[in-house]
């Protein structure tokens, strides 16, 4: 039993960790009132998703996809997710930056960082 657990491929561990991070991030976004904490939650979730992406692309025993010659026996890791992850990390960074700048502006305008103070419009 324990052995099985130890034998779990790294990619699965990463995958599971990623999903756990997503959940933690969501929990952070939903449960914390402080905007900064919400942003932290978002980055956690973002990171989690990236880990999931990487894990999806990984093949057990695969090598880095640097193709030298056409050796069909070598199993390469799928390079596409890795490329995508890079892109999405950049995007996630951008969004985080914007969120933070919003946080600054909100604090400037309202002297508060609570998300409850952002509820002036409803219905």
């Amino acid at each position, binding site marked *: 039993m324990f052995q099985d657990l130890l034998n779990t491929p790294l990619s699965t561990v990463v995958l599971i960790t990623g999903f756990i991070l*997503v959940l933690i991030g*969501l929990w952070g*976004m*939903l*449960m914390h*009132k402080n*905007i900064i904490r*919400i942003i932290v939650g*978002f980055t956690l*979730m*973002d990171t989690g*998703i990236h880990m*999931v*992406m990487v894990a*999806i692309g990984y093949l057990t025993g695969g090598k880095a996809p640097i193709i030298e010659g056409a050796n069909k026996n070598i199993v390469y890791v*799928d390079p*596409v*997710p890795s490329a*995508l992850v890079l*892109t*999405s990390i950049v*995007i996630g960074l*951008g*969004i985080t930056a*914007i*969120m933070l700048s*919003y*946080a600054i*502006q*909100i604090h400037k*305008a*309202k002297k508060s960082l609570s*998300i*409850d*103070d*952002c*509820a*002036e*419009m*409803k*219905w």
Partner: protein
Amino acid sequence: MVNSLTNPLNIIIITLLSSFLLPLIYQKSEQRAVNLFFAVLAAFVVISLSGYLQLLSGLPTIEVLTAGIEPPFSINLRFGIEEAFVTLAINVAALLGAWYLLPHLKTNAPLMLLFLIWIMGMNGMVMTRDLFNLFIFVEITAISTFVLIGFNRHNETLSAGFKYILAGSLASSFLLLGTMLLYFQTGTLNIDDLVAHQSLLTGPIGTAGLVLIMTAILIELKPYPANGWGLDVYQAAPTGVSALISVGVSASYLFALYKLLPLFDTLLPLIAIAGGLTFVMSNFMGLKQNQATRLLGYSSVGQVGLLVMALALLSQTNQADHYLLIAGGLFINHFLAKAGLFWLAGLAAEKDIKHWSHLKQHPVIFVLFVVLLAALAGLPPFPAFWAKWALVHTLVESQHYIWVGCILLGSLLEAVYLFRWYGYAKSKTNETAIVCQARQTFPIKLMVALLLLCGHAMAINFGLQPERVLLPVYAALAMLLLHKQPSYTKALVTLLITGIFTLQVLPTLTGLSWIFGMIFLVGSWVLTIGSLYKGTEQRPSYYPLLVMLILSLGSLLLATTTLEFFLAWEFMTVSSYLMVSLGKNAEKSSLQYLAFSLAGAFFILAGFALAYSETHSMQLSSFAQLAEHTVMIITLLLFGFLIKLGGLGVHVWLPGVYTDTDDDFTAIMSSIVSKAGLFGLFAVGIHITTQFNDIEALMFVLGWFGLVMALAGALMAVFQEDVKKLLAYSSVGQMGYIITGFALTSHMGWVASMYLAVNHVLYKGLIFLAIAGVLYRTNTRLMYKMGGLIKNMPISFVSVMIGIIAISGVPPLLGFGGKWMMYNALVEKGWYLQTAMAFFASAVAFLYLFRLIHTVFLGQQKTEHADIKEAPITLLIPQVFIMVIILAFSMFPHVLIEPLSTAISPYIASTITWTGHLLETKQGYWNGFMVMNVVAGIFLVPLFILWMLSKVTNIQPVKQFNIVFAAERPESPETTHYAYNFYAFYEKALGFLVKPNAIHFWDASAEWAHSFGAALRRFYTGNGQTYMAIILMYLGIIYLSMRAI
């Protein structure tokens, strides 16, 4: 070379290039940076336009391959006709929006840059065929949106922007995750490839991926209830940005959804439900909304929901041609109208729609506002009208009846809150004026022009001649140019236009249409003469709308297909609504009128669509082939027409409308416009003569309905103090007889019905014109405040007297003919108890008729009315004209009855015979000519006695207080004139029959709809975390219901 210049990829390349250049140039010269900025946007437009034109001319779809490798191994963009159309729309909107936003944008180079990137992102979303690339463009768009929303740094904007970021990032996370899951399952990111490998997507991972992607895109399209953040953005963001979010961003997401639809084959019902729910619910919630921008937000959300629903439903029906027409029509309509309205809201700078009346002081903006509202509400000639027509037809054909109900309900609600907005803008005057330059209104004007253009194009697309069917609109727009002229000129031009139109149209009509042509065209022409009496007033919109109304009535007559009919019907509804709304304090009543009229129109639409699904023909004559759905179709059409006729239960709009409109228009409204419903009945009725057996039960119910209506209308009229309300209820009663006559579905019944209709035109027009003169002179509508006016207004008195004798059916005037034929027809049909009921109703009519003439013209005159003059001559001329016609028809009834009989006998065999002047039926006979002569002769006897005795008797003319007053003297005219609560005793006896149940019912319904809207929007707590939770739950629900499927 040209091709390479107009390569859509250039949109992206140009943006990237200029994003380096712009900040540099900006530092040197602001103006040059702006020039470059517009050059880029113009280049976008040029690229997409040239691409669109090329594709239209038949060139193949442009496939843009990156990295020189075929997909799926590379990212590819596609620029087909659909993409070209959407990008063109987006880019045009972007150009105009940039023009609008320029004062804000040019303060800051990065803002311009972001704007360009934003537009590029939208373009990219439309064009890309790669799922991950889609994600990237989504993010590009989203990031620039976030920034653009927040640039003015208001409290509300910041809150809204942050909530938007939270929701948007959640959605893009879903998208990313879903993309990866699909990739994991299929190993490809290319959409076409994914569609090709759809079979691989059946497992849990694939399904989860699909659900995630679908949810992500749906969330971005702001479905109910996971759209609170979106509404906040619409409300708080700068209107220029809101406009582009509502149109541009939504368009690109919609197109993304459209692209991905093949992937979601199994999820189509869910998408449809999501869209439909959003459409109906957001329109319910719109009822409760008073913030202009948020109202537009609800409308946007609803429209997008409708589009989503239409996309989902139509892709199930496999009707490609309709598909594009409908989606494109709905899309372009929403696109243009919503952008225009958002910009207009920015110009108006007034949050609360109740304070929008300052718009009135700027007539151009006001007209733009009305046109945009009409377009948004899906009224003709704007594209949404055509799209909804086709959509309903398609859905009915594929038996999606419930969806049709949703669409019509949602559209009705939307029209109601939009036009309530119009009502507020129309109401009390606001001191503050709008400050704006022509520069700012330019994009709005262009949108309106494009809307009209698209409507025109759609008309062509539907195989109609736009210059004929859209004539009312164009004529009205042309009349608007005269708006600085005095009322006289406009009235004369109106008479001229309608006169020419009448002369053109009438000779082409035959049979019943000709008779209705006489009613509609000649009748309204004569009544229009009366409106000259308000010559000194400006009445800027009265005459354009009048022209539109009359011309649309004319086109109604010319209609041979259901589409033409419905189009003209809607024109008539809209123009009459707008005319009603011109009256003082007419906000509530005109809104009621619109709501009921549109509901009626939607019933008609549903009926036509159902008929089309059976016969596959839009010809009205194809109704003859109906078999299966006859009863249902006729019921639907009846509902529609009865609402226009003011049928009992839905008559509640009628008194308010007749009361609040201008007095001269009330005459037209009551005597002419109400006949449009009757024309509808006959236009359909003549084609279904062979199916009378099928609908006999329905007609039996309709017969009783008409009589109950006749009685209730008469009874309600009895208890009114307001003279126009009295006449309004009287119209309800008279319409009751006419409906019953139609329900008889026999030759004599129809002749009676038509005869009564012609009568009603004559005497109601006459009375309303006379009363218009009285109201003009006395400035009150309350009858007990009048009295004794016979001395001052003898001709008006004679008009009303002739009118009431004609209504009451007392021989020798023509009203008797109608009653006589009605009873004969009823007895002939075997409807005996109905006959007695009709008689009772006509006896009750005496009560209100006497009250009308007594309390206004007879009795004690008020002191302040002592010096009142006779009504203006322009009101008297049509009255005298109508009186002459009434007397002529009374003397020679066959002049009227014979054409009616001949017009109807092709459809139903005649059962009446003529011997000279003698009209005979199976039961009885009537010689109108002889009756007239006998009565005239007999009348000489008492006249002779009077004359003779006045020779030997000293007759002293006396004044109003010289009455026997129980040996006292009258205190004052007010206390002596017996007028107020005239029939108190009758109310004690029968008042319980006319408790305002219908009004209570509809008031309660409206209240219920509002409360329902209020309950629905409890989701929108304003808290970003709640919104996120809702989004998560939305995902969960979609997933669960997906599993359930």
